[in-house]
């Protein structure tokens, strides 16, 4: 008796469905609340190759929703723990491990080898990056996202169908929509939404049923109500020629930062520092720190003369957002120098020195 009998005996799935699964390659981006249920089912059901991508470690506050992890796993790498547990669950699966986050530089190279991507991330920049990379490579991706007691599911870019940008053309800024860390999520909701994602992935791979393409499933846990919203392809969104130069910083931790308080004491310590203020000339004229050199965000190329002579460069703007982008750009341009974003920017500094 084969281990997959219970599904191969289904008339609409059959041994053909199983064969398709065993030959399929799926990349799961994010090993958190959504990624874990997706993986557990795809692995159990016999998907041949699974790509696992995440760089986080397991923290105590993950355990209420990331139910594969135990207290013994705290402090360990998610990637390593998932690999161990998934290998024990199904020794026939081939695993590719990516000890990284998805970035503009690795996205196309990584995704090109897969049939399907599962977006199990927790932030907009990576979701938009997955969308654009999948559009360029003509790969479908299964989308899942959460907000509080609510979850959204869809399959984008499936056989020339609508994309994520057909629903949401513009990426929201970090301030306008909170993520799970700020907003919270009820532990069981990612389990439900991730399991829906696994179901859609299986349907895409085995070509059964009606794939959730051109439809956004909205699930409200509090009322147990599901709504499906239909939407159409905007053909412009398929005309993408390359990735954006730049997706917003993926996560505050990725950009090295210093608190305004620490920076303030650094200024007081009389160490010679290089500080670049990336606000507009007008804003700079209005109020500035005397140590600062003004190089507006749109003309960062003029910074080279200052960066070249410094070991470490601090970057400031009004609120800390533009300077975060600037640090990201600088890091790419000058990989050998150290850059720090000043958190909270001039707004915060103003509260420290009245």
């Amino acid at each position, binding site marked *: 008796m084969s281990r997959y009998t219970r599904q191969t005996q289904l008339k609409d799935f059959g041994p053909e469905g199983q064969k398709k699964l065993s030959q399929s390659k799926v990349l799961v981006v994010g090993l958190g609340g959504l990624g874990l249920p997706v993986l557990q089912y795809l692995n159990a059901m016999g998907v041949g190759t699974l790509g696992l991508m995440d760089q986080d470690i397991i923290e105590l506050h993950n355990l209420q929703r990331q139910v594969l992890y135990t207290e013994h796993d705290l402090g360990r790498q998610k990637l390593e723990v998932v690999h161990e547990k998934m290998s024990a669950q199904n020794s026939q699966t081939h695993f590719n491990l990516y000890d990284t986050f998805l970035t503009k530089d690795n996205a196309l190279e990584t995704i090109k080898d897969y049939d399907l991507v599962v977006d199990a991330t927790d*932030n907009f920049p990576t979701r938009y990056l997955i969308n654009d990379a999948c559009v360029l490579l003509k790969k479908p991706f299964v989308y899942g*996202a959460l907000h509080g007691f*609510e979850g959204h599911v869809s399959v984008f870019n499936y056989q020339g169908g609508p994309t994520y940008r057909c*629903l949401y053309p513009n990426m929201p800024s970090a301030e306008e929509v909170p993520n799970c860390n700020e907003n919270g999520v009820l532990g069981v909701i990612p389990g439900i939404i991730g399991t829906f994602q696994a179901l859609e992935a299986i349907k895409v791979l085995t070509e059964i049923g009606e794939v959730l393409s051109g439809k956004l499933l909205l699930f409200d846990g509090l009322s147990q109500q599901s709504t499906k919203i239909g939407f159409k392809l905007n053909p412009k969104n398929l005309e993408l020629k390359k990735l954006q130069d730049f997706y917003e910083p993926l996560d505050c931790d990725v950009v090295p930062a210093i608190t305004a308080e620490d920076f303030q004491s650094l200024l007081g310590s009389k160490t010679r520092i290089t500080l670049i203020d990336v606000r507009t000339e007008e804003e700079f004229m209005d109020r500035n720190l005397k140590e600062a050199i003004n190089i507006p965000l749109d003309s960062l190329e003029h910074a080279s003369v200052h960066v070249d002579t410094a070991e470490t460069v601090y970057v400031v703007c009004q609120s800390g957002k533009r300077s975060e982008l600037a640090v990201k750009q600088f890091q790419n341009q000058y990989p050998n120098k150290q850059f720090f974003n000043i958190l909270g920017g001039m707004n915060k500094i103003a509260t420290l020195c009245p």
Partner: protein
Amino acid sequence: MTILLFGITKDIVGAPTLSVPTASITGKKIPKTVKELKTFLGNTYPELNKLSSLAVAVNNSYAEDDQVINSYDEIALIPPVSGG
């Protein structure tokens, strides 16, 4: 006209649904299109204006700004959500 709210719009309004008058006794403009509805809601809840992408569904279909809306339509505000 009842509007179903999802994601952050639910938090902004503080309720899962929102009622918009379809007849006016005060002479206040009644929204006739999706765009007018967005403006109307944005005046009452300025936080909504900050959303760079906000999908509106009319009768379970994604609606463009110029779509005409009627009092019997089922309308939903669906902002992007990011949690995972």
